Structures are given as C-alpha cells and as structure tokens.
C-alpha cells in the first residue's frame, strides 16, 4: 500500500513537471525529461534481455535438455558463477534444442556492442547489414502486395452496377465509387514528376491536389482527436490521485509546484537578465 501511495506521488510530480514546460522551460521539466531518458533506456534494455536474449539466444546455446559435463557447458557454468539468475544451474529450460548456429547472431551482436569504441565502430556494420537485408526482403514483398496490389484491387469498383444507387451518403453508390476512382488516379498522377504539370495534365493534377488536401485535413482532425484523448487520459489519472486514498497528491504537488514557479517568476521579474525563453 505504501508503494502504491508513494508511487502515486512520484507519478503526479513527474506529470506536473512535464506539464510545467507549458509555462516555460524550468528545472522541474529538465529533471523529469532526463529521468525519462535514463529510465527508458534501462527499462528497454532489461525487457529485451529477459524476453529475447536470455530465453531465445542463451536458451538455444545452452538448453537444459542437453546439459552435460563437457567443455561447452563448462563455459556456461563459469557464466553461472557470475550470474546465477541469467545462467541458472543445469542449463536454461525454455523448451529449445541446442542450435550452435545461433553463435552467428551472438557474434554479430557482440560486434554491435563493441562499436561503442571509436576504433571498432565499423564492427556494427555486419549486424546492421543483416537487419537491413532482412527488412528489405520482408518489406519489398509486404508493401508491394498489400499497399500496391491490394489497393489497386480495392480501387477496381463497379461504376455501372444496377443494384447500386446513384448517390448515398453512407454505403456504396455510383457517385462514391467514381469519387474514389477519380481521386486515386488524379492523386497518383500528381506524384508523377517526369512530366511538367501544365495544360490538361496540370488541370488533372490540380484535382489530385484537392483530394490530397481533403485527406490531409482529415489527418489533421484525427491528429487533434488523438492528442486530446491522451490529455484526457492524463487528467483522469490526476483526478484519481487527488482523492483522499492518495492523500490528495495532485492538489499538494500542484500547489507546491505553482508556488515555486511563481516565486521564481517573481525573482526573474526583478532580475530581467536571468529570465529564460
């Protein structure tokens, strides 16, 4: 319970510290920002290690199912003396068989880490090359199939179907299908820069820009919606933490922070050279 209440006060302080940036850049914000950077790096390092490296890499190099007294597990036992949590006794039991080919990504990974040293910075290239090659192969197929062919298929829609109405606000209609076809084609033509956008071609691309502007406006509307939703989420949490169960954390932290920032602003007013942006 103490952990929960203390955690609530920490969360409220950090939230208001970030929000204090709206007033102006100040030490509270800088402290919270640096804590976020440090904790994020440590959090992700721990998370990726325990969910990937330990079970899937070490678990395949030293599986418990094939534990023996040989040289290979001798190395494992040595690591186990350093950290018994990462290398528990008897091998790592995650349901894998031994795959010594996993020494290849292990070596590439170590080379990546060694690139921290300036003279060995080129070491990371091999690991990066593997990830780039893998991503390029995956994406070439994925984007061509779903984003190009799939969308072309979606644009081939009936323009003269007798079952469809001429126009409808909701649902398919001849007019709506025509809008989608014209908009897609003219929008695509706008991105064709090998021909100058003038004359009749210019008029067609102009129509394309109008459709693009409508979709940018829709994106803007959704972007505003998303940001406001996140703000609502933060305020809901602050309201929760203002209750008596958490000793009115929100109110106390707000009063103290506003007081300190106000006092600092009052001092800066007397000393204009020290005023920040």
């Amino acid at each position, binding site marked *: 319970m103490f952990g929960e209440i203390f955690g609530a006060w920490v969360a409220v302080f950090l939230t208001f510290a970030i929000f204090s940036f709206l007033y102006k850049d100040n030490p509270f914000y800088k402290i919270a920002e640096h804590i976020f950077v440090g904790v994020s790096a440590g959090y992700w*390092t721990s998370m990726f290690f325990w969910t990937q490296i330990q079970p899937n890499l070490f678990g395949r190099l030293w599986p418990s199912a094939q534990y023996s007294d040989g040289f290979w597990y001798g190395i494992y036992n040595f690591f186990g003396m350093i950290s018994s949590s990462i290398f528990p006794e008897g091998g790592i039991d995650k349901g894998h068989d031994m795959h010594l080919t996993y020494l290849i990504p292990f070596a590439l990974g170590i080379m990546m880490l060694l690139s921290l040293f300036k003279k060995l910075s080129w070491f990371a290239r091999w690991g990066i090359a593997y990830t780039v090659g893998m991503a390029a192969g995956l994406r070439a197929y994925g984007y061509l199939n779903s984003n190009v062919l799939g969308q072309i298929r979606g644009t081939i829609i009936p323009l003269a179907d007798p079952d469809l109405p001429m126009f409808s606000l909701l649902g398919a209609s001849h007019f709506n299908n025509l809008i989608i076809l014209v908009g897609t084609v003219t929008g695509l033509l706008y991105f064709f820069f090998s021909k100058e956008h003038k004359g009749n071609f210019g008029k067609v691309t102009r129509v394309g820009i109008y459709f693009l502007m409508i979709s940018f406006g829709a994106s803007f509307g959704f972007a505003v919606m998303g940001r406001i939703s996140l703000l609502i989420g933060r305020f809901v949490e602050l309201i929760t933490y203002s209750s008596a169960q958490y000793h009115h954390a929100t109110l106390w932290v707000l009063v103290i922070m506003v007081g300190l920032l106000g006092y600092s602003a009052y001092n800066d007013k007397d000393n204009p050279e020290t005023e920040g942006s």
Partner: protein
Amino acid sequence: MLWKRHIPILIVAVIGSLTLFGWFIDEPNIKAFVNDDATQWFDILASFAIFLGGFNLLKMQLQKVLRKKQGWQYSLFAIGGFILAIIAGFFYKGNPDVAWGTHVTADGTLFKWIFMYIFAPLGATMFALLAFFVASASYRAFRIRNFEATLLLVSGIIIMIGRVPLGSSISSWFILYLLVLIGGIAINSVFKNKQYTAIFVSVGIIIVTSAGSSMGWPLDQPGIFYLPHLQEWIYMNPNVAGTRSIMMGIGLGIFATSIRYILGIEKSYIGE
C-alpha cells in the same frame, strides 16, 4: 575494405535475396531458415541494437558529467534513472515468489513499479503535451490563404466535430443557417453591396425555416448537412482516395528502395 565494405554489402544481398525469394520458394530447408531461424536472428540483433542505444546514451551522459558540460547536473538524473532500471531488471526483484525472467512482467516487482509510476506517466504526459501545442499552432498558424488550405481546414473541422458526440447533437438545420450566414458574408465581400447581402440572407433564412417547419425539424435531415453523415462520407470517399494514392506511391517507393539495397546500389547503412 573487404571487412568494412564488401562483406556488409554481401550480407545485405544474400540475406535480402533469401528473405524476398523465400516467399516464393517451397524448399523446406530454405523455408525453415527464412521463416524461423532468420527471424529469430533478426530479433536477437534488434535486441542488441537496443542495448547499443542504451549504452551509448549512458556513455554520452557520463561524458557530460565528467567534462562538466552545461546542464551536467541533469545528466546525473539520467544516469540515476538508468541505474535504477538496471537494478530492478537484473539485481533486485522485489517479489521473491517470482522467477527471474518473468519478473519484468509480474506484479509486485520493483520493475513493474517503475513501469507504472515512472515510465508510464512520463511517456503518457510527453505525448499529452502535444495537445496544447496543436491547439496553439492551429490558432496562430492555420490560415485559409488559398482554396487548398480552405479545403484542408473545412475537412479537418468537419471530421473534428462530426466524429465526437457533440457533432451528432448538432442539427443539420443549424448548419444550414450557418451556411446562409457564411454565404451572406461572402456575397458582401464580393459585391460590397449591403442590399444584396440583406436580400440573400433574408431569402436564405426564409427558405431554411420553411423547409425545416414543413419537415418537422428532424435532427439528421437533410443528411448531407448532418455532420456525422457528412464526416463519414468525407472519411470513406475523398479521404480514402487521397490516402490510397499516397499509400500506393509510398509502397512503390519502398519496393524500389528495398531492391536498391538488395542489389547493393544503396549503401547508406555503411555511411556511403
């Protein structure tokens, strides 16, 4: 040259080709490698890349402290935060009933406490901050300088209002009256004749009022002026058309770039 340049290019070419053609080859060993082991290796290297980022960050912050650069005191908080997360991840569970490994997700651990009361609030608030800046930027910079900007603004406003419950509570007749008023302002700015403006606005109000009275003032009729229906039409038709054309353009671009990487034409990953 061989180690620093040719071998990385060869790795990209071999792995890229294998992954791409793996979609089309039915040979069991190749399929097993491409679908299973190759993806596992990718995951492992992705994890090491995260470690590299974390250690690089630590290195930079330590250098800032040791060289007493401007703002070095704040770097102590960054280093402290990193050390706290590493202690929670590797040295102190906080819940003795939980095994190492599952402690990163289990309840009652220090790691989970850090996630709930430090990491999550900070991340969420950073994003939430943008709401204020979006509002401020919209007020100060969003101007209808030309027809395209007007289209962008109008579609954005219709989506913003039509998509929330408030939009479904606004009658289409209110929108009609608003359009009559906007039309009047436009007539006035073009003709600069108060008489024309007055006639337009009066006739407009009379028509809208008569139509509304005869139909019984239904909230969602005429449908084209009911914001939720209008925003749905914009969302599903012209918006899809514009977004689709962008998506196809990006898809073709990514395909072309991927082939360039596999063929060794693009070498930006080795700094060329």
